[in-house]
């Protein structure tokens, strides 16, 4: 897909990887709309001529309303990047000074809502419009190398494995209509959310396992996202960008 002149929606585009993707798309002449919760961040983005929508993409009612308004204004999007989510680490069973504690069930639900439900909500609303207008679009799901199972990340790993499964299902369902669905799975990347969710010591240990001995840069992940959007034969697969961590 040629990016110039196309319309893209990026969820969670205010900061981190999402922000890097927004910048890369803008560089390529794409009209970008960001769906994000962060009102202050959206105000900043507006100054860069980015259309901004405040929306909690883990809430189906909000997604229905926001996508409907988007479609009224712009018609069908050509590209949807499901990037919004939270990175959360907690072992299944924690050993604390007071004894043993279970993984927080509330956090399980919160991560599944933010990282998996949101992908379903956004995609079903955006693809409906693509289909009814016969738009040959691209859905990019931001997965993670944790989808294969990362110790200490039950909810996050399960949600991302779900994202990979949805990618395969939708690629098969929507491919005949000319809609591609693919995923990009970053490894450990130098973002605030990584630093918030993973301890410095754990991150140091992880970096030692990466053959390139460093974290990924957001711009490198954004480059990967742009590449798979542009490649019209890339479909239904997960593009892993992890510096060789999983080989």
């Amino acid at each position: 897909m040629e990016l110039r002149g196309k319309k893209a929606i990026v969820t969670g585009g205010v900061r981190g990887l999402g922000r890097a993707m927004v910048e890369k798309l803008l560089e390529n002449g794409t009209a970008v709309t960001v769906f994000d919760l962060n009102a202050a961040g959206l105000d900043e983005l507006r100054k860069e001529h980015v259309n901004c929508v405040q929306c909690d993409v883990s809430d189906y009612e909000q997604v229905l309303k926001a996508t409907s308004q988007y479609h009224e204004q712009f018609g069908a999007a050509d590209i949807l990047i499901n990037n919004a989510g939270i990175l959360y680490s907690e072992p299944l069973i924690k050993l604390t000074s007071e004894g043993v504690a279970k993984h927080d069930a509330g956090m399980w639900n919160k991560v599944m809502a933010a990282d998996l439900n949101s992908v379903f909500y956004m995609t079903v609303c955006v693809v409906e419009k693509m289909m009814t207008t016969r738009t040959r679009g691209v859905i990019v799901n931001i997965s993670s190398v944790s989808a294969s199972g990362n110790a200490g990340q039950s909810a996050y790993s399960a949600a991302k494995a779900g994202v990979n499964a949805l990618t395969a299902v939708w690629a098969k369902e929507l491919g005949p209509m000319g809609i591609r669905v693919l995923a990009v799975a970053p490894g450990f990347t130098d973002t605030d959310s990584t630093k918030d969710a993973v301890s410095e010591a754990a991150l140091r240990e992880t970096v030692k396992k990466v053959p390139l001995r460093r974290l990924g840069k957001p711009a490198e992940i954004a480059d990967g996202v742009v590449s798979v959007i542009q490649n019209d034969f890339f479909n239904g697969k997960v593009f892993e960008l992890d510096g060789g961590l999983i080989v």
Partner: protein
Amino acid sequence: MDAKVENLLSEVLQMPASDITDDLTMKDVDAWDSLKHMELIVALEQSFEVQLSFDEIVAMQSVSAIKRVLRERGVTG
């Protein structure tokens, strides 16, 4: 065009061509579900070199409707 449509339906729905009659509808064939319908639409588009609108796709829920829409789009023999 009629025979080509019938053969195509027979192939996609894996039914004998003799069973593909004009009054056959989606409801009559278990295998003719929403996913199979999209497969059929893509096969029709490729075979007759047309791009159908979504309204046309929704309307094509019987053999006679498929033939009618294709005729309206100028598809002949």
